Each structure stands twice: as structure tokens, then as C-alpha cells.
């Protein structure tokens, strides 16, 4: 295949994501125009604010790809966050390593429970995860009644500041916040091998047509459970990030459920399953956060910001619907 043809293929396949990246670029330029001294520091704080949202969106994306939806992500984040904060309170810095591993494992288990319940009870995903939303939220309240706990110093330092790489010029490295590296590494370690594996392929197969997948010999139940378990793992990462950035754990779930669904849809992962990846939702999270920043710079009332965010979400999705209609007329 000629390089040109393969290039057009890449563009056609990833059109949505490329469009999102372009939109992000435009928004960054707009931000620079609105606020001339916006720079690396601003980008760093943008990434830091976006981190929990990004992990929530990644978790939601995995589940949506297999054709489900997980309403309990914010609750799982709250539960893992308070668990981490409680365990780390008054303990040594080394012990925190153990806590991190334990909490990640806990996320896997929580997610696997969600998935197993869906497969075993045959109740629709949305209902099971709705019920589990209450269960995990209740568990978080049992672990910690009110916001509290602590986080290890090295964990907090993990998302503050920028990366210092010897061979990179200073101008470049100031634009790489540690939080971004953490995000890319944490998601990449799971996602890249998964995407290339048989299991990843099965996930897409189950999402796009469960019956066809079943007849081709895909173990649907197992694939679903794994997807939910990995979503739980990402949610646990999100919970840890919450504890890292605030230094405490809060048992009341944040606004991550809505935001994760919005980012997933904006990011080109269709509800219903079988399409999209993790890059789109992550870029969508950054866009949504940056819009919020811009509106703050413009001294627009934060409440109006909520209206604008909702409107953007609805309009982008409507636009996506129109595009889909044009390309596949019914």
C-alpha cells in the first residue's frame, strides 16, 4: 500500500479523534488569545484538574465498548479513594506502595463483581450498576463517615510539577506535566496490550454483535466480566488520583458519572458498543475542562458555564447523530 493510501486510511479510521485533537488545538490557541500569559503552568493545572475525569472516562469507555454502561464508576472512585486515604493515614511512605497495589486490586474486584452480577443475574447492565452505585456508595460511607484520611508525600508529588528529562530542551519539558505522563502510562500499560490481544478483539466483537460473537466462539460472559473488572481498575486509579490531588478521601461521589458518559460520547465511543477507543474520550475530557477554564477566564458566571457545557454536549452529540444519518441513510 502506498504511504498516501495508508495515510488516508488512518485519517478515515480515526477521523473523529483527529477532529477532536484539532478542536483541542484551536481551543488552546483561543485560550492563549483570551489570556496572553496562559502557558505551561496553566496547561499543567488543566491536566491535574482533568485527571480524575480522564480515568472515569477511560473506565466508562471500556464498558461502553462491550455494549454496557456503568453507572457505579463515581461510587467506585469514592470507595477506592476513601480506602486509600484511610489506610495511608499515619502509616509510612513505604507502606503506601502496598496500599496503592491493594487499592488497584480492590478496583479490579469491585469491577469484576459488577460484571459477574450482570452476567449471572441477566439483569440489564444499567439496572445492575444503578443498584451497585448505592452499594459502593454505602460501603464508602462505612469506610469513612466524613472526608478525612491522608496521602503519602511521594504519591502527592507524583502529579505535581513537570517531568525533567535530561535530553529534552527545557522549553519542551515544561509542557509535559507529570500528571499527563502518569495518565498515559497508567492507561497505556493496560490498554495497549489489551487492544492488541485476542481479548481486546473479543470486547469489540461482543459490543458490536453479541450473537455473532457468541457463534464465533467468543465467551461473552467472561469478556464482559473482564471489561467491567478493568473499568473497576481504571476507577480505582481515578480514586487514587483523587486522594493524591486532595490529600484526603471523600465518601460522597463527585460529578464523575455524568462527565464520564459525556466524554465517552464526545470521544466517539458509541453507546451500544463496538466502536471507539480510549484516546477520543481522554481528548474529550481535556476539551471539556479547557472550555470550563476559558469561560472562567472570560469572567463568565460559573453557573452559565454549566449551561454552556450541557449545550455543547447535546449539540455535539446531535451533530454526531446527523453525520451518522448522512453516512448510513435508513
Amino acid at each position, binding site marked *: 500500500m502506498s504511504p498516501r493510501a495508508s495515510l488516508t486510511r488512518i485519517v478515515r479510521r480515526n477521523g473523529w479523534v483527529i477532529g477532536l485533537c484539532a478542536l483541542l488545538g484551536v481551543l488552546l490557541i483561543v485560550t492563549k488569545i483570551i489570556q496572553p500569559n496562559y502557558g505551561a503552568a496553566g496547561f499543567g493545572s488543566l491536566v491535574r484538574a482533568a485527571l480524575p475525569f480522564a480515568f472515569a472516562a477511560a473506565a466508562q469507555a471500556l464498558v461502553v465498548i462491550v455494549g454496557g*454502561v456503568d453507572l457505579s464508576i463515581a461510587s467506585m472512585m469514592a470507595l477506592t479513594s476513601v480506602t486509600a486515604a484511610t489506610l495511608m493515614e499515619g502509616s509510612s511512605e513505604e507502606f503506601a506502595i502496598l496500599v496503592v497495589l491493594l487499592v488497584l486490586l480492590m478496583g479490579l474486584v469491585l469491577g469484576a463483581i459488577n460484571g459477574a*452480577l450482570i452476567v449471572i*443475574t*441477566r*439483569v*440489564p447492565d*444499567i*439496572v*445492575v450498576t*444503578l*443498584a*451497585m*452505585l*448505592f*452499594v459502593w*456508595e*454505602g*460501603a*464508602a*460511607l*462505612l*469506610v469513612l463517615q466524613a472526608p478525612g484520611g491522608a496521602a503519602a508525600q511521594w504519591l502527592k508529588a507524583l502529579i505535581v510539577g513537570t517531568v525533567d528529562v535530561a535530553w529534552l530542551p527545557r522549553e519542551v519539558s515544561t509542557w509535559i506535566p507529570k500528571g499527563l505522563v502518569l495518565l498515559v502510562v497508567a492507561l497505556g500499560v493496560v490498554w495497549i496490550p489489551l487492544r492488541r490481544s485476542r481479548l481486546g478483539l473479543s470486547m469489540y466483537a461482543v459490543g458490536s454483535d453479541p450473537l455473532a460473537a457468541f457463534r464465533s466462539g467468543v465467551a461473552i460472559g467472561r469478556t464482559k466480566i473482564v471489561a467491567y473488572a478493568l473499568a473497576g481498575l481504571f476507577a480505582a486509579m481515578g480514586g487514587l488520583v483523587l486522594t493524591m490531588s486532595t490529600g484526603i478521601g471523600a*465518601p460522597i461521589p463527585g460529578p464523575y458519572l*455524568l462527565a464520564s*458518559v*459525556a466524554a465517552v*460520547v464526545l470521544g466517539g465511543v458509541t*453507546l*451500544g458498543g463496538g466502536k471507539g477507543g480510549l484516546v477520543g474520550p481522554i481528548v474529550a475530557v481535556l476539551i471539556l475542562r479547557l472550555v470550563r477554564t476559558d469561560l472562567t477566564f472570560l469572567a463568565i*458566571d460559573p*453557573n*452559565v*458555564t*454549566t*449551561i*454552556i*457545557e*450541557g*449545550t455543547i*454536549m*447535546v449539540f455535539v*452529540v*446531535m451533530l454526531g*447523530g*446527523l453525520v*451518522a*444519518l448522512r453516512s448510513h441513510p435508513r
Partner: protein
Amino acid sequence: MSATGPARASRWRRVLRDRPLIPLIVLLLALVVVLELLRPGIVNERWVANTIKFAIPLAILAACQTMTMLTGGIDLSVGIVATMSAFVMATQVTTHDPAVAILIALVPAALVGLANGIGVAFFRVHPLIMTLGMSLIVTGCLQVYQRTVLATGSAIPEALVWLGTGRTYGIPNALVLFVPLAVAIVFGLRRTGFGRLLYAIGDNETASRFAGVLVWQVIIVLYVISGLLAGIAGLLYVGLIKAPSLSLAVPLLLPSVAAAVIGGTSIFGGRGGYAGTIVGALILSVLTTLLTVLQMPEGSRRMLFGAIILVVTAAYIRITEES
């Protein structure tokens, strides 16, 4: 075990499948019995009236879920729409006649429903996303609106308090509104063309389109009705709670979905009905009292609430499913 065992079991199963209300009512009564055993004397006329009073706004919101779920949709904007109409009414009533204020309050509710309907019908946005997005927009609008009416204060008309809280001869007045409404919905779903169209679209949208159904009209009317019902539920609820706030009915959103699901309405569309939903709302209402009586910590209460929703739905699917 005798040889007739399995046969009898399957006959039972058939009866339960044809009359899905029976297991639900049995569950409701069982919960009441458990409550009475735990706290003898609690189940009296006053308690029953109270439970019904709190179940009614939930049941109306669950009606929105039932009807939208019949077409394979869902309406996640009902919590904030109910809150909005209650808040708008409470702030407008200081300068307008109560009846006018109520009408003013229902207009935005219908408009939100219209927007949902247009998004779902024309732009083919997934109802989950459309209604979530609208609820974000409404939340923002409501916060801005609150700032503009800070000075006017708020009030709740006598009529709504009477309707929401009052009792006549021990019977909650809210039933005056709810009984005709419930009858209209149950009848409307079972016997009218519009109700049948909802089932048809939920069962197979393409087939109903080929059969000549103007799907977009049905969907738009459906979501407008859903918005209006949510507005009415909000007005009733504020008469019960007597304190308008920006988060008044938002906590009722997820229970309203749960009530419809427990009541046997399939979230994928085409199956279910409103009678089950009403029993589902009553079950949730009794369950809340039960969990309060048990004096558990808040955390375990929520866990138990979630677990029970799951167990009931799973059992229900097992019983009513074709075997």
C-alpha cells in the same frame, strides 16, 4: 419430592408470569409484615397514609420512566425538571396568583420535554445522553434563575400544601390527583392507540415505521408528557416537603428508575406497565421506612437498598422470563 413437583412448579411459574403483579404485591405485604414484626404497632392508619404520601411523587416520576422505557428510552431529566417546576412555582407565587404560578411553572417543564423529544426523535441522540445533557442545562439555568429571584423570596400556596400533606378522614389528599392520573396512564397505555404505539416502537421501531407509524410524533409527544408529569410531581413534592430548594427532587431520580424496573418494565422497551410501577414505588417507600427503623448506619442502609433493588429485579426476571 413427588412426580408432580416440577409440573406444579411450572404451573406456578405460569400463573406468576401471566399475573406479574402478584409476586410484587406479595413482596410489598411481606415487607409490611417484617416492619410490623420489627416494630410492633408501627403499621397503623397514619403510617399507611404517610407511606402513600411519600410514594406518590415517586410513582409519578416513575411513570415518566415507565413510558419512556416502553419505547426503549429513559428520562434522566425528571429529577431536575420536577425541582425546576417546584422552584419556579414557589418564586412566582409571591407575585402571581397560585393558579397562574403553577401554569408558569409547567411551561418550562413541557419545553424541556419538547427539547428531549426533538433530540431523540430527529437527531437520534441516545435518550440517556439527551436527557442527561438537558438536565445539565436545566441545572445551570436554575442556578442563574435563582440569582435573579433572590430578593423575591418564596412561598408555597395553601392548595399545594393541602394536596401534598393534608389528609381527609385519614386518606391522603394527594390521592385526589394521583388516582385519576394513574387510571389515565394505566388505561392510556393498555387501551389507547398512543399507548399501543409506545409498546410497538419499543418492540420493533423499524417494523412500526414500516407499518406507517410516524415515530417522531409519538416520541415528541411522549417526552413532552414525561416533562409535564415530572413538573406535576415536583409541585406535589414541594407541597409535601414545604421547602423549595435546587436539589429538591433530584434524589428521587434513581429511585424512580428503580421503581419502574422493580415494577417489571423492561429497560429495553416493549414490555411492562404502570400498575407494576406503582407497586414498585410503594415497595421502595416501605423499604425506606424499614431501613430507617432498623437504625443501621447510613452506609449499610444504602448498601442494603442497592442490594434489594438488584435481588428483586433478578428474581423478577427469573420468574417472569419464558423458561
